[in-house]
């Protein structure tokens, strides 16, 4: 399948470049619908890999790339279940999203996240699964999970440890503060910092350059410089599920979902 248009995202293959566009109101929160469509994409990826050399992931929402997991859905779903049942449901969800993230991370395609605005939580984790992050000057990266009594659960911690130095990993995880694109470029995560609204254009130009190279060699080079920390990824799921059953998480989620404050995203 060379193209797909769903309710949360769409993709198409053009001239050897796959473009995956996120487009779900309000800011591409990842809930069951987005996960299901991401799984469809991951399922189609094998076939696309035979025809393409690069994948670009970007957002069509003005607010940003992705605000992370759909916390409202998570809270509402977990309220309908006993705690152990909710924990099992969360584990299944995490295992599914990890399979998607791993498929993108391990893909022989060279993958580019073209980001702007909010890149929070699960959105940040999706960008971390990509090989290159091209950010415009509005981009802001954050792992706010500790505010909810949780940790990132979509593979963010092992991938952050792989791609960043200790100071940044600990600051991002333990303070929950957000960083702008300039800082993330200085930290070595953002490969190109571009003007507002230009990330996708630059990602397309980058993908066009990648087309000139032998695909097999590029895939082998990627595999060599970007090992996938499978064992730590599994440990992250275990830790997340262990923390999820604590009352502090329910209280944190409730506070977020019911908040009418102007600043719920500020940690």
């Amino acid at each position, binding site marked *: 399948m060379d193209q797909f248009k769903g309710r949360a995202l769409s993709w198409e293959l053009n001239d050897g470049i796959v473009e995956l566009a996120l487009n779900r109101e309000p*800011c591409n929160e990842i809930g069951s619908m987005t996960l299901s469509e991401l799984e469809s994409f991951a399922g189609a990826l094998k076939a696309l890999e035979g025809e393409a050399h690069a994948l670009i992931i970007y957002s069509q929402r003005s*607010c*940003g790339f992705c*605000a992370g997991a759909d916390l409202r859905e998570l809270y509402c779903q977990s309220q309908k279940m006993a705690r152990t049942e909710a924990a099992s449901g969360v584990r299944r969800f995490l295992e599914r999203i990890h399979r998607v993230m791993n498929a993108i991370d391990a893909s022989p395609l060279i993958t580019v996240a073209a980001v702007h*605005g*909010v890149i929070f939580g699960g959105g940040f984790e999706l960008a971390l699964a990509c090989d290159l992050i091209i950010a415009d*000057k*509005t*981009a*802001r990266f*954050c792992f706010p999970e500790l505010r909810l009594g949780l940790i990132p659960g979509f593979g963010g911690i092992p991938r952050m440890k792989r791609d960043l130095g200790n100071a940044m990993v600990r600051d991002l995880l333990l*303070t*929950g*503060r*957000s*960083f*702008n*694109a*300039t*800082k993330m470029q200085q930290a070595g995560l953002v490969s190109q910092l571009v003007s507002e609204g230009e990330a996708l254009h630059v990602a397309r130009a980058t993908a066009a350059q990648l087309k000139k190279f032998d695909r097999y060699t590029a895939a082998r080079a990627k595999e060599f410089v970007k090992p996938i920390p499978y064992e730590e990824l599994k440990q992250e799921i275990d830790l997340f599920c262990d923390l999820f059953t604590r009352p502090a998480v329910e209280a944190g989620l409730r506070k977020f979902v019911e908040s009418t*404050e*102007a*600043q*719920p*995203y*500020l*940690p």
Partner: protein
Amino acid sequence: MCAIRTSDQTIDEILDLAAAHFKVSRERLTPDDDFFKTLGIDSLQALDLLTKLENHFHIELPDYELQGVSDFRTLASRIRSRL
């Protein structure tokens, strides 16, 4: 040599930037306004403003320092502490 900004200059630059970015009349904005109300913005848009301010003043301002800050004058003092 860089000129040192006064408090009033810092506030003026913030108000100019906020007015331009959120497309409101500069004349409507005063230093003691609640920027959430005056600009009609939510927390994500406030982070967008923070990014603009960091880029403009070439500073890094942790967003937790903005917790409870809602007026331009206090915002300016937080920014000045990082200049």
